[in-house]
């Protein structure tokens, strides 16, 4: 069960990271 939660966390991170990065880029106005 611990592995399942760890995997779920990994999966969510994998899919949310690009979106968060884009939000940060927009917020900071880098490019």
């Amino acid at each position, binding site marked *: 069960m611990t592995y399942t939660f760890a995997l779920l966390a990994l*999966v969510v991170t994998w899919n949310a990271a690009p979106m968060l990065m884009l939000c940060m880029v927009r917020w900071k106005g880098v490019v």
Partner: protein
Amino acid sequence: MTCNLSDRVAAAIFDSDLIATRLLLAFAEFLWAVMLIWPGDTFGRPTYALMAELATEEVWACAFGVTSYLQFHIVLSNKQHTLWAHYFALWNSLLWAYVVGSMLLSVYPPPAAIAGEISLMVAAAWVWVRPMILLHYARLAHGHARQH
């Protein structure tokens, strides 16, 4: 004109259409559904241990079947630019990431036969992420960015 390597890579990943990618994902999901519904204990193998912890074979087969149907529907009805197709891409990416992640964490060394699944996971994530990147730069190009 494209001249250097980064231009050619950018053209290959940004200027290509994702319809073929979606079709490939839909077909792979259909095959997953067929093989999971196939009589026999697929989840008895150690590779599927983490998938089995989350749901039964039948539930996974249904998830893949419905996902495949919706993916085909998006492509064949030309709905890939709608908002719900974008959110569907997120679901699809989550599904592939869980499936591939579970197989990689369940056995060691990593099974060579899932090279295709890993590629599909990356493709599904790209279908979800690319429109957001393009939209970001489209907004910049049209002057909606904050002025400094």
